[in-house]
């Protein structure tokens, strides 16, 4: 009987499944593809929040197929963790270790945006804090599910645990949308 001890070390994945995973983690890519046939891209409430609240339009979008924001007034530097992304958007950079490495070409003053980042799923609290410290140079916008960071979510609020461990300024716009800065954030309306 074959026992699979670890997903990441069990062997290579089929190409079809890699593609399925890529799209599962980046639903925006299929929506963006449909715009080639004339359909409008359906912005969700987070996209609209970004449009209304990010004043610096030069942004770095990380691992969510965020190049669609080019069509909405942003100029993007796009970083992805999967080479599949190159098939759709050749200008993106591929970085395999996003959780613990911030490339030097990312301009420090540009806001960095992550949505549903697969690279943070099931990370320990220490790894998550390390990620925030590494990536927050000016402004980091993080749209994610806090309970997927390993902590006792039945007892503690993730933001309280993180605030105890870092000097970063964290504003919870809503439970799954954090605005993180190395200086106090402006209060949103």
């Amino acid at each position, binding site marked *: *009987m*074959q*026992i*699979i*001890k*670890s*997903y*990441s070390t*069990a*062997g*290579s*994945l*089929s190409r*079809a*499944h890699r593609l*399925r*995973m890529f799209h599962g*983690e980046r639903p925006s890519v299929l929506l963006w593809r449909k715009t080639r046939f004339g359909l409008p891209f359906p912005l969700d409430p987070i996209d609209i929040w970004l449009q209304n609240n990010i004043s610096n339009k030069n942004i770095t979008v990380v691992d969510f197929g965020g190049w669609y924001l080019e069509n909405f007034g942003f100029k993007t530097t796009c970083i992805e963790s999967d080479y599949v992304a190159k098939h759709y958007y050749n200008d993106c950079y591929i970085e395999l270790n996003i959780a613990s490495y911030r490339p030097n070409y990312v301009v420090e003053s540009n806001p960095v945006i992550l949505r549903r980042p*697969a690279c943070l*799923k*099931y990370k*320990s609290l220490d790894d998550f804090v390390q990620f925030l410290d590494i990536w927050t140079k000016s402004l980091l916008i993080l749209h994610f599910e806090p*309970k*997927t960071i*390993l*902590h*006792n*979510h*039945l*007892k*503690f609020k993730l933001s309280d645990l993180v605030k105890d461990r870092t000097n970063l300024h964290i504003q919870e716009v809503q439970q799954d949308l954090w605005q993180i800065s190395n200086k106090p954030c402006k209060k949103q309306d």
Partner: protein
Amino acid sequence: MLATRQYLHKSEFWRDLQVLSFCDYDADAILEQEKLMLDFVCQFPDVLWRWRAEKGLFYNICKEHIRIDTQIKHNGIIIFGSGIAATSTRKLVRRIRNLVQNTSVAYVGINRFSLLEHNIDFELPDSMEQSLDLIMEYCDPRFKRLHTFDKIDGNHMAYAHPMDCYGLCK
């Protein structure tokens, strides 16, 4: 191979989609946490088990090792996945107590990420593992954790089979 591909397209089970996605897998491939379950339930060859979970490929594998009862004569129960979808600790405890009350043995796998709220009147310890242990002890003091994993693996296996699994032997 064709049969597998057809199954992969038809399957609605996350677990099967993940396991079948490996380029080199055996037909009887199972996850480490599923092996824990099999090892536990196979200790009781005389028990008739009731199956309260998804009926995918793992169910077919288990049917070859244990006796699964489709009537109401069971004296053991296997619960995980959709068989125990609960979003609060109170609901979880109530469901588990109801399901195990007339059985002599039980296997229960808890998906910690489906629990959103603790609403029973006792304080939880700081660690998630200890909290779940306490909640299961509250269901029945004879529940024992079968294993503690060092980490949750990757982005996918957490939803394939729970890594917080417990055995009950009355």
